[in-house]
C-alpha cells in the first residue's frame, strides 16, 4: 500500500538529487532540486504530515527555489570553470569515497537498530482526525513558543543582513 509510492518517490528524489549534483547548467540543477523537494513533499504526505507537505511546496519550491533561480539569472554564471590545477586533484574521488562511507556507516547503524513504535498521543489516526495543521499549530504556540520566537528573530536578522549587503553605498 505504502511501498509503491514510497519507492517511486524515493527513486525520484535520489535521481533528482544526483541531477542537482552533476548537472552542468545551474538552472538544470535548480530544476532538479525542485523535483527533489516535491518528491519529499509527497513522502511527507505518506508520513501523515500533509501540512508540512504543503509548507514544503510553498516555502521551498515556491520561495527559496525562486530565489535561487533569480540569483542564477542575476549572475548568469554559465558553465562551471576549471578547477585550479593540482591543489584539488583528489577532491572528487575522495568526496565520492567518503560520501559513500558516510552512507555505509549510517546504513550499518540502521541495520543494527530496530526502533520500537512509540506510544505517543499523535498516532496517524489521531492526526488524521484532528488534522496535522492544527496539531502542528497547537504545538508551535504552546510547547514550542520559544523556538518559534527565536525563528522570528532569525528571519528579521536575515532581512537586516540582506539589506546591509545589498544596500547601495551612501
Amino acid at each position: 500500500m505504502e511501498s509503491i509510492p514510497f519507492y517511486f518517490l524515493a527513486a525520484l528524489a535520489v535521481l533528482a538529487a544526483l541531477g542537482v549534483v552533476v548537472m552542468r547548467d545551474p538552472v538544470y540543477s535548480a530544476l532538479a532540486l525542485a523535483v527533489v523537494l516535491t518528491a519529499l513533499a509527497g513522502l511527507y504526505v505518506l508520513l501523515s504530515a500533509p501540512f508540512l507537505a504543503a509548507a514544503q511546496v510553498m516555502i521551498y519550491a515556491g520561495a527559496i527555489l525562486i530565489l535561487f533561480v533569480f540569483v542564477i539569472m542575476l549572475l548568469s554564471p554559465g558553465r562551471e570553470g576549471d578547477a585550479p590545477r593540482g591543489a584539488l586533484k583528489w577532491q572528487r574521488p575522495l568526496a565520492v569515497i567518503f560520501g559513500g562511507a558516510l552512507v555505509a556507516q549510517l546504513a550499518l547503524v540502521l541495520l543494527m537498530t530496530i526502533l520500537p513504535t512509540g506510544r505517543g498521543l499523535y498516532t496517524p489516526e489521531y492526526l488524521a482526525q484532528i488534522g496535522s495543521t492544527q496539531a502542528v499549530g497547537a504545538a508551535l504556540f504552546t510547547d514550542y513558543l520559544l523556538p518559534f520566537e527565536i525563528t522570528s528573530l532569525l528571519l528579521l536578522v536575515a532581512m537586516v543582513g540582506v539589506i546591509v549587503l545589498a544596500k547601495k553605498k551612501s
Partner: protein
Amino acid sequence: MTVNHYIFLSAILFSIGAVGVLIRRNPLIMFMGIELMLNAANLAFVAFSRQLQSIDGQVFVFLILAVAAAEVAVGLAIIVALFRTRQTVNVDDVNALKG
C-alpha cells in the same frame, strides 16, 4: 515501510548533498547541496516523528524551513555581493586568504 527505509533514503540524500558541496565549484550549487542535506534531516525528523507517534518532529521541520529560508537569503546575498563584480562564479577563485 518501516522508519528505517525512510532514514536510509534520508542518509542517501544527505550524502549526495554533502558530495555536491565538495565537488562543485559553483557556490550556488554547493549551496543547493547544503539544502539537500537540510531536507534529508527534515525527512528524518518526519519519519522519526511518525514512528514515535509524536508531533514534535513535524514542528521541528516547520522551524527548520524558516531557518533554511533565512539562511538562503543571507547566503545568496553574500554570494551576490562577492561575485557581482567577477567574471566567473567559481568558488576556487576565492582563495586570497590562506596559509
